[in-house]
Every structure is written in C-alpha cells, then in structure tokens.
C-alpha cells in the first residue's frame, strides 16, 4: 500500500498476512507493459518499488528491513512470481545486518524466499552482502523454480554473499551459526492439458542445483576456530547464472577463468612461457581475490573469496558487467541488455 508503484496492484488486505511475509508478482500486460500485479509485505519486511520509467526494461524492487537489520526471531518469507516476459531485479540498500541471538534458546533469524520464473522471464538478485554480527544465528533459504529448463528461457542471475561481520568492532567470523542455501528446481505440470498458463497447476520438480554453505562458529576443528578456518578471507560470494539471455555472459566468465594466471612453482607474473597477464587479472590477484567457476548441470556457478570487501566488489562487478582487459565495462553487457542500466548499485 505504501509502495509508490504506478501499476494497478490488487493487494489483499495487509493485515491478513503474517509478520515478515511478502509477495511480489510481476505481470506483463499487453502489449508489453511491465506491472507489479501484486506487491505486499508486513513488518519486519519492507518492499519498495520505484516507479519505473517508461522505457525501463525491468522492474526493480528493494527488499528492506526496518532499522537496516534483522534481530533474532525475525522471520522473513518472501514469495516472488515473474510471469512470462517479465523482468525483475531485487536489490537491497546496504548490507543485511544480522544482530546477535538474544539468548542461546532464542530462535534464529530466518529469511526465506521462493521465486517462480516462468518461461521467457528473467530474474536478477543483486543484494548487498549479508553481514552476520558476533553471536548471530542466521538461516537463509532461497528457492528458485525455473519453469522452462528445456529451452532455458527462465533466466536468472543470483548473487549471494556474506562478510565477516563488523570488522571495526573486531568481529571476524564471530558469528554463532550461518547457513545459506540456494536451491534451483525444475517445475513439472500436474495438469498437462493447460500447458503452463499463469495458474498454479505446476509444482516443484527435480532439484537441479543446490549450493549450501554452513558456517558453524561453535565448532572447533582441531583447535582451529571458524575465523582461523577461513584463512583470512573476509568475504565469500557465490553467483549462479542460467538462461538464454546470459549465454554471452557465461561464455565471457568461462573464458576469463580459463585465462586465469597459472599457479605454480614459478612466479606467475614473470612466467615467460605463459601469456602476458592483463590489468584486471593482476589487480584481482593483488587484491587477494580468489575465484573459481564451474559449469554444473546447466548452470554456471562462480565462487569468489577475498581478503577485503572492496576488491571482491570490484571483481564481481567486473565479471557481471563483462569488463574488457583494461577494466572498462562492455557496452551492452548481457545484464544491462536484459534489465537496463543501474543494476549494479550493490557493487558500487
């Protein structure tokens, strides 16, 4: 209701939904007008959708929490539907701060999101990192249901990242527990007669990919604490990409990974027989950025870690915006072409 969307949304009464619940439903009206068919939410979740300009290629919704963070016991349940031809980008404004668990028996902080992406729809999730404070206990579970995995027109770019906490207060992975799961499912039709109309006849199908990370601050490994196990890395990021519109982006990332400087006995930057390393590669290495890309079951999965936040941000932004060898953004990169400009706010 508070949202300043320009579209004719038909939200149910706000009071009827449970605390922390939210729904975003993107629909394309003829001829090709992107609308927020539904947008509703309840405290502690807040959704803001800036009115799209007329020529906007996508809708953007900001996912916020009141006070800029979530406390123990907060539970957010966001459902997202992107209908045929829809383009939705979810962003945040600043890192998601996870406050400490009140008492050892208090419930954890939970964020769940289920996203349904119809054929020909694209979804971009580029939030700021999650920042778990000391003694926090956080569970994040994100489910993405891709309706078209045959022609790969249900497209996604998802970024999920976590930092060590408030370094200024000497928090370095001092969290109690952090769990993040990203699951990608296919969809199967129960009622095959009405092949994929907007209704709910299709249910979650086969698990296509699951990326799960569990950090347990209370567990010792030998005598190593979680902080020591992290090898001075202060940030871990995972990006998952799939879909026809991002074919070029996927190719670009694979090529860059294939061209990564080799690690070996010789000094990598003075290796005579390897090729000359360009600026972005040298910069990433100097910033302590480590990364790996793998093609798994139709997805491209990129893992990045680094010793400092800014280096990783710059690196991820460079990767997603397909920068050239000198670090200049490509005109008309895949993400800009699909969603428009201004998508990289969280990476600035």
């Amino acid at each position, binding site marked *: 209701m508070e949202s300043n969307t320009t579209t004719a949304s038909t939200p149910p009464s706000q009071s009827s939904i449970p605390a922390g619940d939210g729904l975003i439903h993107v629909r394309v009206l003829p001829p090709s007008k992107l609308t927020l068919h539904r947008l509703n939410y309840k405290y502690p979740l807040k959704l803001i959708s800036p009115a799209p300009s007329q020529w906007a290629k996508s809708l953007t919704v900001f996912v916020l929490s009141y006070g800029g963070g979530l406390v123990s016991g907060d539970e957010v349940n966001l459902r997202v539907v992107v209908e045929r031809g829809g383009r939705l980008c979810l962003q945040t404004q600043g890192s998601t701060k996870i406050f400490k668990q009140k008492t050892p028996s208090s419930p954890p902080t939970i964020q769940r999101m289920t996203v349904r992406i119809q054929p020909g729809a694209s979804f971009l999730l580029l939030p700021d990192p999650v920042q778990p404070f000391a003694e926090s206990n956080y569970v994040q579970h994100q489910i993405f249901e891709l309706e078209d995995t045959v022609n790969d027109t249900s497209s996604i770019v998802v970024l999920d990242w976590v930092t060590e906490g408030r370094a200024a207060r000497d928090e370095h992975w001092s969290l109690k527990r952090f769990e993040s799961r990203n699951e990608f499912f296919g969809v199967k039709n129960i009622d095959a007669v009405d092949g994929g109309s907007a209704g709910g006849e299709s249910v979650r199908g086969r698990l296509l990919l699951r990326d*799960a990370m569990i950090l347990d601050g209370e567990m010792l490994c030998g005598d190593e604490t979680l902080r020591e196990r992290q090898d001075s890395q202060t940030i871990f990021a995972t990006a998952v990409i799939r879909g026809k519109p991002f074919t070029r982006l996927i190719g670009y990332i694979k090529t860059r990974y294939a061209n990564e400087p080799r690690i070996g006995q010789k000094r990598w930057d003075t290796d005579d027989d390897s090729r000359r390393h360009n600026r972005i590669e040298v910069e990433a290495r100097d910033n302590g950025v480590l990364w790996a890309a793998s093609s798994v079951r139709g997805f491209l999965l990129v893992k990045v870690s680094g010793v400092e936040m800014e280096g990783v941000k710059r690196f991820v932004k460079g990767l997603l915006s397909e920068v050239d060898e000198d670090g200049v953004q490509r005109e008309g990169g895949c993400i800009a072409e699909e969603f428009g400009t201004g998508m990289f706010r969280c990476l600035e």
Partner: protein
Amino acid sequence: MEQNTTPKNAEESLEALKSQIASLQSQLAAAKAQLQIPIPSLSSYTPPKSNIFNADLHPFIRTPLTCIYNIKLTQKKGNLAPSPPLHLWLLLADSALPIGSFAFSSGLESYISHRSLRPAISPKPTPKTELTRFLRLSLLSISTTTVPFITAAFKSPSSVLTLDDTFDATTTCEVARRASISQGRALCSVWDKSFASSLLKIEPNNTEIPTHCKPDHFGPSWGYITRLSGLPDTSEALEQVVFVFLFNHVKALLSAAVRLSLIGPYVAQQILASEEVGRLVREAVERGRGIGVEEAGQSVPTVDLWQGRHERLYTRIFNS
C-alpha cells in the same frame, strides 16, 4: 588409533575382546548350523565361510575397526550386534582396490600450491603442519557434504538413485564432481565384476533393496554397496561404513602427500596411526551421520575454492 594407554584400560579391553570373541564364535557356529536354511532377513548376517573371525588372527587387524566399539559391545552382552564383517572391510580398505583413489588429492595439491597466496603465519608452518591442517579441514568438509549421503544411501538403499542425483546437484565444484564420479563408478564396477558374486547378500527379488542400481558418486555408492553386502541397518554397522570411508580418505590424502614430497612414508604412517587422526575421523563420523541430506552443505568454503582452482595449477600430478 592407540590401543590403550593405561593397564586398567588394557585389561578392560582385553576382557571385552575375549567376550566378543566368545560370542562371535558362538555366532559363527550358529550361522554354520543354519547354512542350509535360507536366511530370511538382513539381520542374520552370515559371516564369510573362511575363519577370518578366528581369535588367532593378528590382533592388529581388528584394532582399528573394533576398538571404538568395545565399550558398546560389552554393554550389550548377550544381545550382541552382528559381528564386524572384517572380510568386507579388508577388501574395501585395501589400497589395491582398483578405484583409482591414488589419482586424487582432494584439493591438497592445490592447497599447497596456493601457499604463497595464503596469509603468512608465524612460526612458518612446516610441510607436516600444513598437511595436518588440510587433513582436518578436509575431514570437516567431507563430513558435512558427503557423509550425510553415505548414511542415507546405506539406510535407504532403495532410493539410492534419487540420492545420487541430489548429491550430483549439491556437489557444485567441478573438480570434486569429477573425482567423486570417477571413484564412484569404479567402485560400482569393482562390486559388479569382482565382489557381487561372493559378497552380495541380498536376494535378487528383494523388493526393499534393489541390487542392480549403479549410482555415479563415490559417497552414495559406498553406502549402497556396503548395504548390499549384507550389513544390517544398525547404528554400529553404519559407524563402520562411514569410518572406513573416511579412513580411506585420510589414507589417500597421506599417500598424495608422500608423492607431493610433503612428508616421507614413515611420517605418513605415523600420522595415520596417531591418536589425533583416530579422533578426527571418529568426530567426523559422529558429525556427519547426524546431518540429513537436506541439511548437508559446505562447512569449509575455502576447500571448494582450493579444489576448484586445481585446474589452474601450472603443473599438477593429481586429478583433484
């Protein structure tokens, strides 16, 4: 895996062994007597016909596998769980088992090569401390990623193919996937070509446990074939299944470390025999089997990065 440190413990353990032996022998006799009668269910595991369970067997052989269970077994006198199928374990823990584990270092090679990119620690770690650190991290990681699937495949062998598919979806590191698939398929074919004819203890028409599945990944196939070999669905049996898997993993890492010249063969055996490794493996068994497949996940994110970057090494001797 120390035997026992204090005389009192040694005595207790000796007692335990004796009672275990006595009861195993009576079981063996009972089983032999039953040999003509078809065995109705899994719970009556038939030990191999050889007298491998004979008490005169070299004591060392039973040490690594049975020492953990002594206490439990003594508590359960009279109601003893089926005997540890030593024959099966000797086969599966054999370094000559042709599944090619020697070709994989599970990220160790990459970890060592990235040494210069990791933060400097003082005092400067020796190759041995680097190796033992990696060993700990690797066991932690594998206990929250692979062990849940071994456990699940063992407990519900009928859903092994679904589990295998889920494991495939969950293992996102390309290098780790290749390593797991290569060893898993090899294990299945060793089972098929060499072991099944004598070790398969499940009737072909058993409706609960299909005998002809071919899972791809190492973890699920390990849980599956050990179940096919007639181990009962008990906590003790499962502990052994996971213990041997993880102990094999440690052996493979140590063997890789020797070939990477991090340590010599004597030190490798010293580490393998150490109390610490025994404890780490037992901890990993305990941790891992308490995790459901839906809760499995990577607990050491750097391991995925080191292992994923294995392909980027200038030179490499291992496949992972």
